């Protein structure tokens, strides 16, 4: 019964993973036909590179901040969508759009929205007098603004996914539990903190786990918006691995960089699955 699943995991996860370990320990180049074993040379070379250290830090910031925002905003949005209101189905459809649209197309749209010359976002901010007439933020040109921009676009993309998962969790909470608490005089915040969030923890864990994996391994948003700039301020491990391995031709170097994603993801997965198991709702 589980053979198809095992084959699927072996073919699409096991084989590429083993291949990347093999490449990382070799001197593989983009056009090499034979590879020699070089031990940990590529790992050592990556660790010696200041760009790698910067990319590692950026990856952590990008992942932690974007996931915190996704979970908080996803919970707020799901709470709103759980209530009955006029046009709810259309609203739900619109919220899902960023998730169903191809990521590269959506990101190119944001690239133009935040363009240095023709940004409609800046234009609107000026028209609303939120920024001065002589102020024109360079969203991808300043270190902090660039990181904030890539995080914001990533949150925009992942928010529907988290919202749908949390919404499913909210609807699975028995209505009687909330009603009983209400009868006992519990207010909104009290119910949220003592009933809803504890019951939602397993589902939030799942949303968080997926979100962290998406954020940690994604390079599309950064590649399209900033290509890691300015001055590597938004370079993350996934994009650095691409630049080194594919554009630079150093396959082994790129594979070594990408392997650094693995231990972090394993730890995150184990920790979150343990939390989920402990708080499982029966």
């Amino acid at each position, binding site marked *: 019964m589980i053979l198809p699943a095992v084959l699927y995991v072996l073919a699409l996860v096991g084989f590429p993973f083993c291949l990347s370990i093999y490449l990382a320990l070799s*001197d593989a*180049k*983009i*056009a*090499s*036909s034979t590879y020699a074993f070089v031990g940990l040379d590529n790992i050592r*070379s990556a660790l*010696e*590179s*200041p*760009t790698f250290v910067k990319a590692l830090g950026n990856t952590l910031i990008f992942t932690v901040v974007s996931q915190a925002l996704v979970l908080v905003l996803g919970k707020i949005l799901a709470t709103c969508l759980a209530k009955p209101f006029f046009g709810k189905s259309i609203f739900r459809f619109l919220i899902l759009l960023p998730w169903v649209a191809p990521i590269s197309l959506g990101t190119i749209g944001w690239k133009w929205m935040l363009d*240095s*010359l*023709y940004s409609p976002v800046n234009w609107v901010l000026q028209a609303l007098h939120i920024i001065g007439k002589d102020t*024109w933020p*360079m*969203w*991808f*040109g*300043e*270190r902090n603004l*660039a990181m904030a921009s890539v995080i914001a676009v990533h949150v925009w993309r992942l928010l529907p996914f988290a919202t749908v998962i949390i919404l499913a969790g909210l609807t699975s909470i028995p209505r009687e539990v909330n009603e009983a608490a209400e009868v006992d005089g519990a207010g909104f915040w009290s119910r949220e903190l003592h009933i809803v969030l504890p019951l939602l923890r397993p589902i939030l864990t799942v949303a968080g786990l997926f979100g962290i994996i998406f954020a940690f391994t994604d390079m599309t948003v950064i590649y399209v918006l*900033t*290509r*890691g*700039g*300015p*001055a*590597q301020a938004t370079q993350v491990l996934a994009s650095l691995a*691409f*630049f*080194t391995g*594919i*554009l*630079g*031709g*150093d396959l*082994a*170097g790129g594979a070594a960089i990408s392997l650094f994603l693995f231990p972090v993801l394993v730890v995150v997965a184990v920790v979150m699955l343990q939390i989920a198991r402990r708080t499982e709702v029966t």
Partner: protein
Amino acid sequence: MADSRTSHLTRRTFLKGTGVATAAAVSPTVIVRAARAKSDTLKIGQWTHFVPAFDEWFDKKYCPEWGAKNGVKVVVDHISVNDLRARAAAEVSAKKGHDLFGFLDPPPAYENVVLPMNDVVTECEKKYGKLAGLAQHATFNPKTKKYFAVSDNWVPDPLHYRKDVWGEVGMKPDTWEHVREGSRKIKEKTGMPAGFGISQELDTNMMLRALLWSYGAQEQDESSTKVMINSKATVEAIKLMTAIYKESMTAEVFTWDPSSNNRFFVSGKGHVIQNAISAIRTMEKQNPEAAKKAGLALPAAGPAKRMASEHLLHCYVVWQFAENPETAKKFVVDLIGSYNDAFLASEFYNFPSFSKSVSDLKGKLAADKVNPEEYAILGDFEKYSAYPGYPGHTTAAMDEVFNTFVVPDMFARVAKGEQSAEDSAKQAEADMKRIFAKWNK
């Protein structure tokens, strides 16, 4: 070179046919491969040209006519500038793709998977004159004596400037010091910024190398083995660009992609950029009044010399796994032979890599219908232009240095105030040495 029109049964085709028949009996895989080898389609993958008229000519006139003449269907896939390298890597990984693949910068890292183009270069030199020095150094590996690509064209990278605005401050961007001084004055007087990219993209890679060379700096030695980026000249060049950024530019230069500086200049926002002539050509079409005020200039001179980088060096490779390698090579030879038309179709963007493949180049430039005076200066550009890896050859190590943007990052760190020019040059040296060590094992 084989003529794909040959229809007689030769000894070669007979042996090939019987061989294929025998092999087909043994393995179904061979049947597929044999069928591919008989394909009558030539597949070309190359960039989407910045001058749309060139693609119009290439796709709708040249390729169909050449295909009809040679009994081959020519299919052209256009790939965006930023995706060319990734597409090439995917084709090599799959060992399947186009017969002819056009790169915008030389790809020595792919030498092991491409056919030597020495025969094409020899034939073209015989027919169309000597291969330009910059194209030769960028596509030839002196160790293996192999041309891993053949360049049909290279693209000059002149300064574009607003003559009216520079006139107001009584200057011309003749040297890098003039560029700095003039830009500062213009910013003070009119608020208009200068536009030299300090970003992880192709145009920045080229422009900043030109600045380094004009200051006497170089990334490697002539033997292409020793890293030489950490020098006093490099530090001075970084300081100059940092000063231009602080005095006359905005943070947008850190965000640019290859088309951003074109938009910056064409929109009328900026007064100086270094770019291929696609910027001024676009301006002529979209903003003719502003185009009358725009001028082209030789590359700015530095303390050491006046130098530019080629803006692009277009070169074709034929993969070892190409289905129609001989037809692909013939196509390149014939295309180079048609460069009079290609040069005109590109509106002077594509400069010929073979000296005689365009007749009376200077005369054609001086006869431009819109702005002959400006385009005439391009006639001497070859003597100022170099290539990634100058004064050595473009090697695989240099290819990685180029495509991982070591030089733009070196400038960006200082302009952003993260490092001193000295420390940034040291870091670039360490980055380059690490890359060279990997490739030179």
